[in-house]
């Protein structure tokens, strides 16, 4: 045995007990990406947290430095992170995750109505409802895999959407949407005299509107990111990646794969419930349109755009999409005319005529184009682009690393 370099304890996260009896090379120091050292994990979380919390500063120059849109980045970041635990890690593509988002919103608003305007209570309930709902849908949908699984989830989500408009109107308030009113009981608030003055969700007296609202969502996003990182590095995460890679081998290796998948499904449902609850915190109104299949498709696009199975990708994808939505949907002909002001009149009209279908109501056309470009040229999403640039940069400097290290990316 020629190997075995006993470099015993150079890694702080490793100091567990005595070294192996035989002098095998002691650690999986070569274990790639998702088994990387815990120190680099902490570093990643710290950098991530810093980046998220300073978004108001560094996103200001591109016109995204205001709380409403930043809050959306954070909320849909959470949604996509959770979705990625299922789709990115285990390979099961759900087309019905908006159902859990919508359920989370309804759950949160009900808490605002019945118990208290305290956001934590509402969010806790939203997570539970999202999880239970995912347990039911996942239990049935996971009897199949591949496209059949996707279709089943889609069917369930559309069913939920239609039920919210019809049979479940007493719970969902149908097309009007579920709203907070002054006459709601709010038992806890009444008991402890915490006057929910204007029906605004609050956190121990602080109204979660504007900047406090953003920072509240941002902290939850950071927590969600940290949890996702832990899951990815855990034994459970390894099992999910193994299922994605070869489910048949997994069965013959002694694993009951379905419970693992169901667990991943429920966890991602809970993330969606949290995101839905946060949407209700931003604006205490829940409507069934949040459950529509387009919303389910949106989170799929976000994840693919950012990079399926990577850690940061879904968050970036969600932010990019929400940003583009904001920018392009706010454009109208007037803005376009001003943009092309420098051109001669004829050409200006021509440019406006060409570009106007891609903005305003038609912003999804732009999104579609962007999506096509990414899928064709960067199948690994934005994260793959980042990795390519990083590795080119490194080799350009004559750096050593031949394999593009998946820094935050993993698989």
């Amino acid at each position, binding site marked *: *045995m020629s*190997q075995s370099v006993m470099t015993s304890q150079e890694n702080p*996260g*490793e100091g*567990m*007990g005595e070294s*192996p009896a*035989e002098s*095998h*090379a002691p*650690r*999986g120091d*070569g*274990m*790639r990406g998702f*088994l990387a050292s*815990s120190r680099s994990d902490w570093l990643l979380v710290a950098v991530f947290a810093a980046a998220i919390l300073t978004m108001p500063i560094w996103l200001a120059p591109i016109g995204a430095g205001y709380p409403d849109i930043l809050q959306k980045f954070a909320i849909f970041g959470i949604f996509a992170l959770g979705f990625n635990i299922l789709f990115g890690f285990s390979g099961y593509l759900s087309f019905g995750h908006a159902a859990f988002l919508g359920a989370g919103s309804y759950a949160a608003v009900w808490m605002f109505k019945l118990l208290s305007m305290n956001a934590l209570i509402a969010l806790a309930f939203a997570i539970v409802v999202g999880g239970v709902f995912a347990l039911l849908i996942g239990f049935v949908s996971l009897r199949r895999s591949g496209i059949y699984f996707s279709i089943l989830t889609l069917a369930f989500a559309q069913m939920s959407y239609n039920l919210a408009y019809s049979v479940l109107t007493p719970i969902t308030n149908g097309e009007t949407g579920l709203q907070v009113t002054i006459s709601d009981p709010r038992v806890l608030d009444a008991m402890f005299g915490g006057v929910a003055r204007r029906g605004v969700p609050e956190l121990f007296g602080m109204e979660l509107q504007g900047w406090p609202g953003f920072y509240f969502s941002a902290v939850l996003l950071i927590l969600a990111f940290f949890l996702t990182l*832990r*899951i990815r*590095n*855990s*034994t*459970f*995460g*390894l*099992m999910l*990646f*193994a299922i*994605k*890679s*070869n489910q*048949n*081998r*997994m*069965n*013959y*290796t*002694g*694993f*009951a*794969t379905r*419970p*693992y998948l169901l*667990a991943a499904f429920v*966890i991602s449902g809970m993330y969606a419930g949290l995101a839905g609850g946060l949407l209700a915190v931003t604006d205490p109104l829940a409507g069934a349109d949040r459950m529509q299949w387009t919303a389910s498709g949106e989170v799929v696009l976000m994840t693919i755009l950012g990079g399926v199975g990577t850690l940061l990708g879904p968050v970036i994808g969600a932010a990019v999409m929400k940003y583009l939505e904001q920018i392009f949907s706010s454009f109208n002909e007037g803005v376009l005319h001003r943009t092309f002001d420098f051109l001669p009149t004829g050409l200006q009209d021509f440019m406006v005529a060409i570009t106007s279908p891609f903005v305003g109501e038609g912003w999804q056309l732009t999104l579609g184009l962007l999506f096509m470009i990414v899928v064709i040229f960067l199948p690994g999403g934005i994260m793959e682009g980042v990795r390519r640039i990083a590795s080119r940069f490194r080799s350009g400097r004559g750096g050593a690393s031949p394999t593009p290290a998946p820094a935050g990316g993993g*698989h």
Partner: protein
Amino acid sequence: MSTELLSIKGVSKRFGGLRALDDVNLSVEKGSVHAIIGPNGAGKSTLLNCLVGRIIPDEGSVTFDGDSLLGHKPHQINQAGIARVFQTPEVFGDLSVFENVMIPACAKRDGAFRINAWGRARERRVVREEAEHILDDLNLWQQRDQIVNSMSRGDKRRLELAMCLVQHPKLLLLDEPTAGMSRADTNNTVDLLKKIAERGVTKVIIEHDMHVVFSLADKVSVMAQGTVIAEGTPEEIKASERVQEAYLGGAHL
């Protein structure tokens, strides 16, 4: 005499009008290497699939270590102590070699289902050590970080064996372990199988390659048309005229 580990009694299986297995009886003894040979369509693979829970026989019984295997799912059968090597290596292609052996080691520790979503996989010292040992034993240590998809077929086969052996199975099933391999890879695999024979793992091998069979097996069963037509030591099988006619086509070995 050593004791019986696997006992197949009166197993039959039909696919429509085809009798794939017809009253198969087979007994595998603890610690032995038992080869099953036979022409294509003799029912060898069907029999193997009956053992791992992929196919449920119409009749008969399969007993492993005192318990019936019938009606159990593949993962339960693995947990009972049966590991399987496939005709084309079934490995986790997107993962590294090290992760590939850590996963079955976890299956051995954790059972069929246990969620550990917080603790880091790499900090599981026992699992890691087991993986390190087996990679070392099978000369895969140098490649531990390689993504499996980029490996040669022979190396994948070796990895698949490592994945099975890390679980310390009571019984190892090998479905044509050298199928589609070059002569060199075949010889390497035979050497490897001889080496792991020292571990005393009971093995059932399905094989076409007579050279492989006769250099490994303690006992050979010959199947033809869904049933066992002869059984004995490799020497006896070589000498048996019935086998020569039915399977070896009269050619001398």
